[in-house]
């Protein structure tokens, strides 16, 4: 928050020089990154690569949430962990790696799963949220908290040979506002979870490392873009730094695209390997962000809605982080 006009140190200039000379970044963009905070929920297949590039870029405060420990079967895709750290809390293992890559950011460990009880308190301390989790119940919880706390959310998911990514709630609008174009929340795009029988986890169904890796790196790319260009802030707070050519709607993500990645072990890259699917904006009828929504932080904390029941009655797996 403070220090947005401070000088960069010599160490910062040297370390960040190659991204600062990219047109559109500059010292201004770099200072915005340094003054930003990001919460990465999940230190698994998405969170590892996302965190590497977010830390590398110099985002000033980086929080990591995960309640799992490192296991051997994680390591083909969770490339910021290490064989010698098997059994260590994933949060601590990941921060160990990030600190050796870039000691300048402040790293905050939240070595437990995100819950309806602890969620609001944790998310409220950060500017932008990355959903790198692995189960529907936590995904709906995170989105609801982002609506109520007005946080932009970069959400990705991956199973087997497929990946998805979407930027939600960016820029954030107050809950219930529907008289102007507003960005959608997770529920606007994905109204109901699949039945538990149709929901595949990476543990049960498998995952190719580079597929989840692509989605994690892309999450970092969107987070850095949003914070460096202040796409999450109202136009007047962003100043005149935006490049020409992009419409305000494109910048503002009020009708975001869902990116889907289809990796095919038996075929080459083709025109349908990546597709960008046009989603709608905020829905008037959305349970979380729509007109007359009754969702509140107090309600969430006290168990209303019941995310586990909403997602089919199964509690999140004990080893929920991928």
């Amino acid at each position, binding site marked *: 928050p403070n220090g947005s006009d401070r000088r960069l140190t010599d160490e910062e200039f040297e370390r960040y020089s190659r991204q600062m000379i990219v047109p559109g970044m500059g010292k201004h963009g770099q200072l915005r990154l340094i003054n930003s905070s990001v919460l990465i929920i999940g230190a698994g297949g998405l969170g590892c690569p996302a965190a590497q590039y977010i830390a590398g870029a110099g985002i000033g405060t980086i929080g990591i949430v995960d309640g799992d420990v490192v296991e051997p079967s994680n390591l083909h895709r969770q490339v910021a962990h290490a064989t010698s750290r098997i059994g260590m809390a994933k949060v601590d293992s990941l921060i160990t790696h990030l600190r050796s890559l870039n000691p300048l950011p402040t790293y905050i460990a939240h070595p437990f799963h995100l819950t309806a009880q602890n969620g609001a308190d944790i998310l409220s301390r950060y500017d932008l949220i990355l959903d790198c989790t*692995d189960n529907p119940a936590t995904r709906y919880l995170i989105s609801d908290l982002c609506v109520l706390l007005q946080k932009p959310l970069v959400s990705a998911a*991956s199973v087997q040979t497929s990946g998805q990514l979407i930027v939600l709630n960016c820029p954030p609008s107050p809950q219930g506002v529907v008289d102007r174009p507003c960005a959608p929340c997770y529920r606007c795009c994905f109204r109901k979870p*699949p039945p538990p029988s149709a929901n595949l986890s990476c543990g049960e169904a498998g995952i190719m490392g580079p597929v989840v890796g692509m*989605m994690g790196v892309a999450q970092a790319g969107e987070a850095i873009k949003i914070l460096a260009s202040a796409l999450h802030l109202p136009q007047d707070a962003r100043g005149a730094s935006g490049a020409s050519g992009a419409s305000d709607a494109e910048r503002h993500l009020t009708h975001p695209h869902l990116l889907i990645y289809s990796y095919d072990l038996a075929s080459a890259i083709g025109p349908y390997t990546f597709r960008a699917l046009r*989603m709608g904006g905020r829905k008037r009828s959305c349970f979380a962000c729509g007109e007359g929504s009754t969702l509140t932080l107090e309600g969430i904390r006290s168990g209303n809605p019941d995310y586990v029941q909403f997602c089919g009655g199964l509690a999140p797996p004990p080893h929920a982080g991928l």
Partner: protein
Amino acid sequence: MSAAKNNDTIDITVDFSGGLEMLFDNKRRYSVSLPAVDGSGKPVTMAFLIDHLCTHLMKDPRVDLFVLDKHIRPGILVLINDADWELEGEEAYELQPRDNILFVSTLHGG
């Protein structure tokens, strides 16, 4: 809107992604030819297509992984020419020649 005659057909492509291709013989893309009008003479819609897919293309017996209570099951996005079908009228959308319809299951792993 459609001036189709009874024996006209409409050719579209149908794609499956996010794992749904497993229900359709592991093929990600089908070329589908539909009658331009249904039995009662109305232009064919997405509802007609979904029924057609279940009847003619689906190889997997687990129909409920695609359709529940006669509607696409929760957790599947439907895209008409790469746009969410909620922007296009959902099941009532009248198919046009060369439309691309994509069914993609939403993922939650990470």
